[in-house]
């Protein structure tokens, strides 16, 4: 059951091109599930007006972490919240995923965050992971330590994660695959993986208003109807999602 709270930030550190915020919360651990996210905002502030939907990076008995990529004014302000300051947190939200014991993860850029959390719920698997620069490939060692085979690629050296998948398409055969990354990457990937899309699931990102199914802002076309990312997602079968 979701709740809305003002919670203290107990860690703010730079991880590659991102900011990791650790939020003190002893209750989240018992309710957060794989696939869940939170809405995050600044207390006593109407600028930005909307809270931002952000996936869990990790959840433990005392706290949870989120990863921020500065894209605009809102994420910039969030990235600057210091230890000892607080955040508005609404969550956990979304539909929980029953992760397989073993499967494939495909991450592009900050798309690694929810997949890192998902890897915690799995026993083993293969991670395909791309970023702009080699040094942006954060958390790859940690995922390796969780028993995953990790394949990385960077645009500065060789290409994108879509290139990596096209070289290793056979890996996807018979495996449940989970993808998170920019929508352009997901569209491209859908184009090359063909039939494997049936066993592939994608984390969808949308602008959100309420996070609670009220405002109907975060629509995504699934088959021929709109679903809401905050209620029906954020994870959808890739072959069912229709991109604009």
């Amino acid at each position, binding site marked *: 059951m979701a709740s809305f709270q003002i919670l203290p930030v107990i860690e703010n550190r730079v991880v590659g091109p991102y900011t990791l915020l650790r939020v003190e919360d002893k209750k989240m651990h018992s309710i957060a599930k794989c696939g869940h996210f939170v809405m995050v905002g600044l207390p006593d502030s*109407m*600028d930005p*007006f909307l*809270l931002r939907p952000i996936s869990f990076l990790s959840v433990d008995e005392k706290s949870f972490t989120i990863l921020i990529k500065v894209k605009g004014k809102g994420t910039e302000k969030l990235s600057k919240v210091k230890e000892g300051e607080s955040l508005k947190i609404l969550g956990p939200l979304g539909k929980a995923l029953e992760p397989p014991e073993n499967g494939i993860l495909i991450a592009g850029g900050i798309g690694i965050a929810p997949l890192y959390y998902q890897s915690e719920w799995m026993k083993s698997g293969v991670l395909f992971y791309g970023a702009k620069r080699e040094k942006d490939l954060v958390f790859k060692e940690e995922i390796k330590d969780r028993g995953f085979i990790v394949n990385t690629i960077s645009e500065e050296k060789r290409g994108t994660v879509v290139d990596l998948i096209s070289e290793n398409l056979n890996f996807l055969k018979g495996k449940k695959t989970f993808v998170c990354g920019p929508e352009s990457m997901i569209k491209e990937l859908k184009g090359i993986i063909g039939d494997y899309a049936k066993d592939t699931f994608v984390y969808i990102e949308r602008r959100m*208003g309420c996070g609670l199914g*009220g*405002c*109907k802002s*975060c*629509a995504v076309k699934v088959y021929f109807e709109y679903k809401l990312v905050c209620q029906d997602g954020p994870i959808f079968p890739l072959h069912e999602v229709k991109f604009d």
Partner: protein
Amino acid sequence: MIDLTVSFNHIKLKNPIILASGVWDLPYTEIVDFNKLGGVVYKGISLKPREGNPTPRITETPCGVINSIGLANKGVENFNKEVLPLLKKFDTAIFVNIFGESIEDFSRISEKISDVSGIEVNISCPNVKKGGVSFGRDPKTAYAITKAVCKNTSLPVIVKLTPAASNIVEIAQACLDGGASAVTACNTYQGLVIDIESKKPLFDKVVGGVSGPAIKPQALYKVYQISEGVEIPVIGSGGITNYKDVLEYLIAGAKSIQLGSVIFNNPLAPMEIIDNIIKYMNEKGYRNLKDIRECIDE
């Protein structure tokens, strides 16, 4: 003992705080205790389900938000079967906002609604091709729709007005003449956001509806104008984020108010606002809402 009750034209509320249509759905009951609210207005429903507009459907503006949802909803049958029974569990006044693309649509949908505290007629949505703002700008259409709905229901009828009307007082008068029990003033303001990368409007339908603190003084003025000019109870709506905003609306003439976008920024705002009104009244020694309007502090 402080009395927050409000009563006008067969509408009775335990306090003046109503949750506006379009910002909440059933999961929000997990966050806020609906038993404490004066009322709730369920999001605009139509005869048949509507899928709504393509995304993006929302973005921020300075001190507010702009949306282009397009009245996505699952239709009146779904409301009666799936939503109303769950809302009835709460001790609060339930209103339902209805939308139609023609006068006949409004008539037919109002027949299908019962067992609620009232119907809010939406002639003010800026995000639809047919109906919406175009109905709410024309006094004759506003009158005809209000009359058609009132003919088909014994429930109190509230008409939600658009600030896009050139003379909102005239529209409120038309609604009164058509038999409305109250008006809600007002729906979102029409606005535009341009994506400077694509050099096109951000929303597929170009126009969006602006809400939030950015529109509070404008909407408040509409409430004042209607209250001064027409003998119809006004439910104030637009940019309210705290108890002081509520006081402004009540003093301007509103009988009650609606909270909308503020719950995106602070989902607990309705509870905090009710608590702060009680605290304020205690400090001032006010006993009821009439005192707020009429007692001037020395």
